[in-house]
């Protein structure tokens, strides 16, 4: 069992429990909201990191919810979230000026780009907000990369304005062909050789990335979204099966080398 404890990290207090003010909270897609939180201090956020957010101050829902950090800009932290249940619907009713408890930065932030190979970024659904910060890094480092984004249909597509703002080209697939190409985002891997893959999205998509990567010998990284209770490694509720037994998605992940975990 790999508990990955790093002695050198120990005295370094770096996860912060912060109460943050909502600067903006608005609907940006059929079921998707953008929340911007005010960040008053510097937090070292890397692509792949996530934040736990408590939707309200009551005991129902009880635990904080995990969200990818889509972007950090000056004093603003960007979260894109789909409304799927109790916590996210409560979040959607928050108003500018309300505050939420957060814990961050969390996760291993393992999105390390390749400098010599083509970097392929694949996003499925809300997974787009899990790769945006990485795309920003690829662009800043002037590396060779391509972004593919798959959504159910046109009205589910979000963040295009963000990609445009940063001048990052993005190719879109929809299940029904209502926008971009008709098909699955993993279709983009078909004629590809010798690339690194970075994928964030629903489990069936990640399984498909695993299978294609194995067959073609790609180095690929996948970001998992297992439900979490604590988000910082103490509950063991978020584990994923690996060669070394169950390992924690929140600490050893959420980004894993695709051959490391069994979905």
């Amino acid at each position, binding site marked *: 069992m790999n508990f990955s404890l790093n002695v050198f990290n*120990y005295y370094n*207090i770096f996860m912060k*429990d912060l109460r943050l003010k909502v600067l903006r909270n608005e609907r940006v897609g059929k079921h998707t909201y953008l929340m911007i939180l005010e960040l008053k201090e510097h937090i070292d956020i890397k692509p792949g990191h996530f934040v736990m957010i408590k939707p309200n101050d009551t005991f129902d829902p*009880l*635990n904080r919810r995990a969200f990818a950090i889509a972007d950090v800009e000056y004093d603003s932290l960007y979260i894109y979230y789909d409304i799927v249940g109790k916590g996210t619907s409560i979040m959607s009713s928050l108003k500018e000026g309300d505050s939420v408890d957060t814990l961050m930065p969390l996760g291993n932030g393992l999105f390390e780009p390749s400098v010599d190979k083509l970097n392929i970024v694949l996003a499925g659904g809300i997974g787009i907000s899990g790769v945006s910060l990485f795309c920003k890094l690829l662009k800043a480092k002037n590396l060779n990369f391509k972004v593919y984004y798959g959504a159910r249909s046109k009205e589910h597509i979000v963040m295009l304005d963000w990609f445009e703002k940063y001048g990052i080209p993005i190719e879109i697939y929809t299940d029904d062909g209502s926008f971009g190409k008709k098909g699955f985002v993993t279709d983009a891997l078909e004629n590809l050789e010798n690339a690194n893959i970075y994928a964030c999205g629903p489990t069936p998509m990640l399984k498909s990335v695993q299978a294609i990567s194995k067959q073609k010998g790609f180095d690929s990284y996948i970001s998992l979204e297992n439900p979490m209770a*604590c988000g910082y490694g*103490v*509950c063991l509720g978020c*584990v994923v099966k690996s060669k070394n037994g*169950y390992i924690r998605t929140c600490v050893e992940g959420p980004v894993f080398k695709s051959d490391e975990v069994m979905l």
Partner: protein
Amino acid sequence: MDKLEIELFGIKFKNPVWVASGTFGYGVEGAKIYDISKLGAVVTKGLSLRPREGNPMPRIAETPCGMLNSIGLQNPGVEAFIKKIYPIIKDIDTHFIANVFGETEEEYMEVIRILEDVPKIVAYELNVSCPNVKKGGVVFGQDPVVLRSLIEKIKAFAKKPLLVKLSPNVTDITEFAKICIEAKADGIVLINTLVGMKIDIYNERPFLATKTGGLSGPAILPIAVRMIWQTYEKYGKAIPIIGVGGITTHIDALEHILAGASAVQVGTANFYKPLSPLDVIEGIKNHLDTKNLKHFKELIGRAHRLDIK
């Protein structure tokens, strides 16, 4: 003397606020959020003789004001704990209490034998109440005869204090408390999780892979308080009680203490409110000031004072 300092079973604790087993790992992660030497003690995740893989997923489910878990005591085993994790925590200035689990009497005893030489571990907390393992745990905690035998065998050789964490999934908790006292345990920890269940209405099947799980969180606070009350009423003078169950704030902790707990453990709150243990410590201090009390000990079991026997 500090208003919160307390000596229990021969050990001095900075304060009566500890963190509960399975909700704080081995302290390493919490130490990345705050200075955990402020805690009275850290109770480790359950340690067994051999590594345990734990239960399949899903292992957690939220319920109204609580959650169910069926982690299944996943842990690297006591040897790996000593080799890999202990070096990281050994210099932290607070006490560590090892939560110990075995499938047989022999396994329990072997884990404790191995921990006898580990200086930072000041006491053992016997987990005889985890509802998530088929063999072992639950049998010890719900069978008076095997529980007595287990405690007696450990007390026959163990040099460090032995606390017994009881299962609330019994008809009369005081029957088990009595066994702990007779078998010479040093303390009783009340309570572990209650067996519960959640159904996934869309897939029309139990939500957890193990079907049932242990309920924890604010939902169980009144049950913990009631069990502490009953136990203190009968045996308050005979053995210290450590309260755990549903504590988020100092108000919850004070309920445990007034019902009869000499110390408390914060559990699930570590998930949704990582700084909760520090707030509890501060809150109790402020409460003592407001009430003009010299020491929190004055509050232990105080809610019983008007009871006419």
